[in-house]
C-alpha cells in the first residue's frame, strides 16, 4: 500500500517509528502531525545535522507529502538561580 492510500494515523505511527528506530535519527521526542498532504514535525533537536536527517528520513518514507520540519535547533543556556531545597 502506498503512503497515499494509508490511513493517516498509520502514517503518523510509521513516521514516529522511523524517528525512533532509524539509525540516522533515534529521536523519540519529535511530534508528528499530518494536515492534508503536509507532514509537520515539531520539537527540539540539538544540531542542524540531526534536523536535516529527520527531514531526509521522513521524505524517504512519505515521498508524496510535503515535509515541514519545524523543529527548533540549538543547545541550551547555563543555569538560572539555584533552587534551595
Amino acid at each position, binding site marked *: 500500500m502506498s503512503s497515499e492510500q494509508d490511513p493517516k494515523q498509520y502514517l503518523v505511527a510509521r513516521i514516529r517509528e522511523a524517528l525512533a528506530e532509524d*539509525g540516522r535519527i533515534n529521536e523519540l*521526542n519529535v511530534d508528528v502531525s499530518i494536515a492534508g498532504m503536509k507532514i509537520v514535525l515539531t520539537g527540539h533537536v540539538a*544540531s542542524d545535522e540531526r534536523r536535516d536527517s529527520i527531514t531526509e528520513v521522513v521524505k524517504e518514507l512519505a515521498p508524496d507529502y510535503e515535509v515541514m520540519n519545524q523543529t527548533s535547533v540549538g543547545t*541550551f*543556556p*547555563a*543555569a538560572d538561580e*539555584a533552587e534551595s*531545597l
Partner: protein
Amino acid sequence: MVRIAAVGDVHFGPDLSGTLRPYMQEIEDKADLFLIAGDLTRAGHEEEGAALAKELRGFSVPILAVLGNHDYHLDHQDRIAKQLGDAGVVVLEGESTVLMVGDRSVGIAGVKGFGGGFAGACGSDFGEPEMKAFVGHTKSVARRLEDSLRSLQTDLKIALLHYSPIKGTLLGERLEVYPFLGSYLLAEAIDSGGDVDLVLHGHAHSGKEKGLTPGGVNVRNVAQPVIKHAFNLYHLDPAGTGSIDRGPGFTARV
C-alpha cells in the same frame, strides 16, 4: 550547603562536541557535584560515548551518572560506562557512592530504573514471559535502589535515576505512555530507603520539573528539554545543620 548541578538526556554525539565544555568553569564555580540522569548518548554508539567522555574529562568537580534507555540501544552500555569511567565519571547501576563535600557526607544511589506504570494503572508480574520479564526487571532494579539507599548512612541521600518514580513530573506527557516512562515501584523504594533528600531523573522530555514522592521526597525531572538549560542547580542543606558551607567543596571520596 551542598550544591548540585544536574542534567539528564544530553543525548550527546560527535556533532555536539564542544557544546558542554564551555559550561565547565561555571559548573566548577557553582557546584560541588555534577549529576547526569541518563541518556548520555543519542543512540548508544561508542563514538557518542567517546565524544561525551572527552567533553567531561578533566572536570574538577566529581561527576556521577546513570545510563538511560538510549545508552542501551546497541548493547554497548558496558563499553560506554567504561569510556566514561576512564574519563573520571562514576557510572552507577544499582550501586551507591559516598562523597565528602566540606564536612558533609553525601550518598548517591544510582539506577537507570525502568517502566511499568503507576499505582492503579500498571503492569503486573503475571502472564506471558515477556510481561513478567518487563515488570520483573522493574521490581529487581527497585529492590537494588532501596538496598543502596538503605545502606547509606550519610548527611544527605540522593537518588539518581533515568526513569521517573512518580506521575507528577510526567505531566505534559501523553497518559498512554506513562507506563514506559517510569514506575511507582521506584518511588516506593525511595520512600522506604530512609530519609532521602532529593531524587533526580530524566527520560520524560515533555514532563515538568518538580514533584514529590507519595512519601514527600522532592523529585526533579532534569531532562534537558524540560529544564531548557545546560544544567540546573540545587542547593541542599543537610537536615539539622542549617549552616552554609561555601568552601571549595569536594574533599575526598570514600
